């Protein structure tokens, strides 16, 4: 699947320095807890965004994507961050056009990020 910039594939999908930063803030314990929270919260926020898009709720979609953007960036899920930001900005202009497709892309990207973070959590705790 090809995406247009800024969600595109030309930029790195993940940034491991974000995980190093979390270890610095609170060791492997914080890193593990942040990953666990993200793995639960991110799919919930994508689901909230999808429901909002389906129901024509521009503000709800904007807020869910805004939360997702912030959390994804903190965990180094940069492609998810770019996709969320793209959607947030579109919603802020008052349109939900293309956002159903975007939430699908977020789902697909989350599946990849989930593997990456699960691996990092296992490594970090070991």
């Amino acid at each position, binding site marked *: 699947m090809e995406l247009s910039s800024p969600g595109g594939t030309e930029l790195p999908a993940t940034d491991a320095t974000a995980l190093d930063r*979390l270890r610095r803030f609170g060791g492997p314990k914080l890193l593990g807890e*942040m990953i666990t929270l993200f793995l639960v919260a991110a799919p919930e926020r994508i689901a909230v965004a999808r429901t909002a898009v389906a129901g024509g709720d521009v503000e709800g979609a904007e807020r869910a994507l805004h*939360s997702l953007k*912030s959390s994804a*960036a903190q965990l180094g899920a940069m492609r998810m961050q770019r996709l969320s930001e793209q959607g947030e900005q579109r919603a802020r202009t008052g349109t939900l056009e293309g956002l159903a497709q975007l939430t699908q892309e977020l789902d697909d990207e989350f599946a990849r990020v989930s593997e990456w973070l699960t691996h990092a959590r296992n490594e970090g705790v070991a």
Partner: protein
Amino acid sequence: MTTIAIVEDNADNRLLLQAILDGLYELVEYENGIDALAGLAASLPDLVLLDISLPGMDGNEILARIRADDTLRKLPVIALTAHAMSGDREKYLAAGFNDYITKPIVDETLLLSAIERWLTASRLGRS
């Protein structure tokens, strides 16, 4: 110990702030504006970290109510936001926030120095 109130609906952001601030400050957490305004009035902290994007009452409205309240109006309030657009900083300062920190938190020293700067200013203002 100096008390900082954190108003933030996302559990991951609260956990991160705890990791950075725990041990340095006493922390009190609120997940929404209604609870925060009631809690701040009942037990005045030394400083507030206020998320902008909250369900229901957002950070801008909470700030407006803080600044309109005789008991709360002098509280130092630092905005926490992922809305990093150019011109945002000026907008938040003009709205009455003392300072502005962007999420994700990349450099914790920016947060810590902003907190200390406004705690100091607040103490000087009271003495």
